């Protein structure tokens, strides 16, 4: 097609520029506000140019909210969720697609069912499960009348496993890997067999390298998801030092009484959005592939 549409071209660029402004302006204002002082943010109209208080605010945020620790926690939780979910999913998908064994379909449907209920709809009992992982044993014990089992207590509140484990219990990744494995040519498996490879060798030497691009794409999405979690860390952490950066922001929110500290909040917001933003900017191509492929 050799079409000339100069007017429409300009309109399209204007639409996209407006869209880009819609995305960038709020982020820019976060940056500007994070560099101003308490007095400067109260001035009307607010400055459109950054001030010189960025590092001063940074120091205040770091000291008053222990923000360095919170960022580290976010990083640990996001990586834990990514690695945990990828590893349990990829082997589970391998099991249901490459093995014939009793209850194969039962296992598949059990995993599949977990796609259906987001954690938001079962927060109270999920919290109870994490607050005491031994709860099922206790219930079983009281049913059977075995008193020694009752009152077992294994609390995951304020621990990294408590922040990570309940969030890796979802089957999106398993489902995605299963879909991918179904497209892998059968000849590869047959050839591996002829060469005398064990299932584990086939998985490690052939299937895993083939899935590399899926793994990277999914890892990006899972990292962002883990970093940006809100509800779960909000429930699972009561100690200031164990919470994540996103939850730390909530504590910096201006209170009704006292001077509003928007400059500190925006400074901290900038720190918190920076790592995932860098991930997206650097790995954009992979990320889009992962998103469109997984439909998640």
């Amino acid at each position: 097609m050799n079409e000339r549409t100069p007017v429409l071209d300009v309109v399209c660029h204007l639409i996209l520029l407006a869209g880009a402004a819609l995305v960038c302006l709020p982020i820019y204002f976060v940056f500007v506000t994070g560099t101003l002082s308490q007095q400067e943010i109260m001035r009307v109209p607010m400055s459109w140019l950054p001030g010189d208080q960025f590092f001063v605010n940074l120091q205040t945020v770091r000291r008053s909210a222990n923000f360095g620790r919170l960022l580290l926690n976010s990083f640990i939780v996001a990586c834990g969720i990514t690695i945990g979910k990828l590893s349990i999913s990829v082997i589970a998908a391998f099991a249901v697609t490459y093995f014939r064994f009793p209850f194969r379909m039962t296992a598949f449907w059990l995993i599949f069912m977990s796609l259906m209920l987001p954690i938001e709809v079962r927060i109270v009992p999920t919290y109870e499960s994490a607050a005491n992982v031994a709860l099922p044993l206790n219930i079983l014990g009281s049913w059977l009348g075995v008193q020694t089992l009752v009152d077992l207590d294994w609390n995951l509140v304020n621990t990294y496993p408590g922040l990570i484990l309940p969030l890796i219990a979802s089957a999106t990744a398993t489902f995605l890997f299963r879909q991918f494995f179904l497209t892998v040519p059968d000849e590869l498996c047959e050839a591996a067999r002829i060469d005398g490879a064990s299932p584990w060798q086939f998985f490690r030497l052939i299937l895993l390298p083939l899935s590399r691009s899926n793994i990277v794409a999914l890892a990006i999405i899972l990292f962002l998801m883990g970093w940006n979690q809100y509800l779960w860390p909000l429930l699972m952490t009561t100690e200031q030092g164990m919470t994540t950066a996103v939850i730390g922001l909530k504590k910096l929110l201006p209170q009704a009484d006292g001077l509003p500290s928007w400059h500190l909040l925006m400074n901290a917001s900038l720190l918190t959005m920076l790592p995932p933003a860098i991930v997206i900017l650097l790995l954009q191509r992979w990320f889009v592939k992962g998103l469109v492929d997984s439909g998640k």
Partner: protein
Amino acid sequence: MGLRWPFRRLSAKPADDGRAESGLKRAHFKDWRLPFWLLAPQLFVLLLFFFIPSIRALIQAFQLTDPFGATTQWVGFQNFERLFRSGVYWSSVQVTVLFTIAQNVLTLSTALLLAFATNHILRGRGAYRTVLLLPYAIAPAIAGIMLAFLFNPRVGPVAHMLQGLGLDWDPNRNSSHALALIVMAASWKHICYNYIFLVAALLSVPHSILESAYLDGAGPIQRFLRISLPMIAPTLFFLIVINFVYGLFETFAIVDATTRGGPAGATSILAYKVYQDGFVTLDLGSSAAQSVVLMALALFLTFAQFRFIERRVNYSV
């Protein structure tokens, strides 16, 4: 028999016993110990943090527990009756419906406009796409906080502009302003997601059809409305479902970080109310009953979602 490698029992023919099993590779292994260990971690985590909590939510919905968990009483459908008779709950339902529909319309129409523009231009596509993806990286809570700041009646630059236009903007007191604020925050965060899918879908519309329409004299807008849009309909349906799931369940953070359900319950969407009743007012029975209602909703939406994912795959969009 001793230890035997499952590989020797690999079957290379399509199902030895004459019937093909769904989702099983033609070349597969027949061991049952190894897959058991491979599935064990996934199923164990699911059991602890998915199945047991889900079943307990179902049971709790029929129980009345005092806030300290000391006594539990079986009350049948009483929690549900109480819930459906509660005016607060129905106003929360109303807010949720309004919120999800407004968010869906705003998100999808903006994303569609941006996707059309991206598809039409030739230069700078990559740059626009990268910038428009950024909101995906930003936590919903931060998107909420960011917009709460911009629209803060005391310090927010956008609020000042609105006040300059003569609008008495105050989301802390005016309930429709508060609702508008969370709709904007939720949409801002989610437009990029819709946009990616729409750009990908538009790219896969067959070029030959567009070309023949061009030869018949159809302009770019006409081609978009008459050809591309109907052809990406499965993606549109898929996105509508996804937007509802997002609006219902993933906007908790936005509500909690910006309005906390206020003023006077004006932004207390269903997912937020479950949390409030369960963890703030400690009405566990009601919270569990609400969970069950939401579960039913989630099941319905997941079902719809899979229907459309299937269709998306079939059309290889």
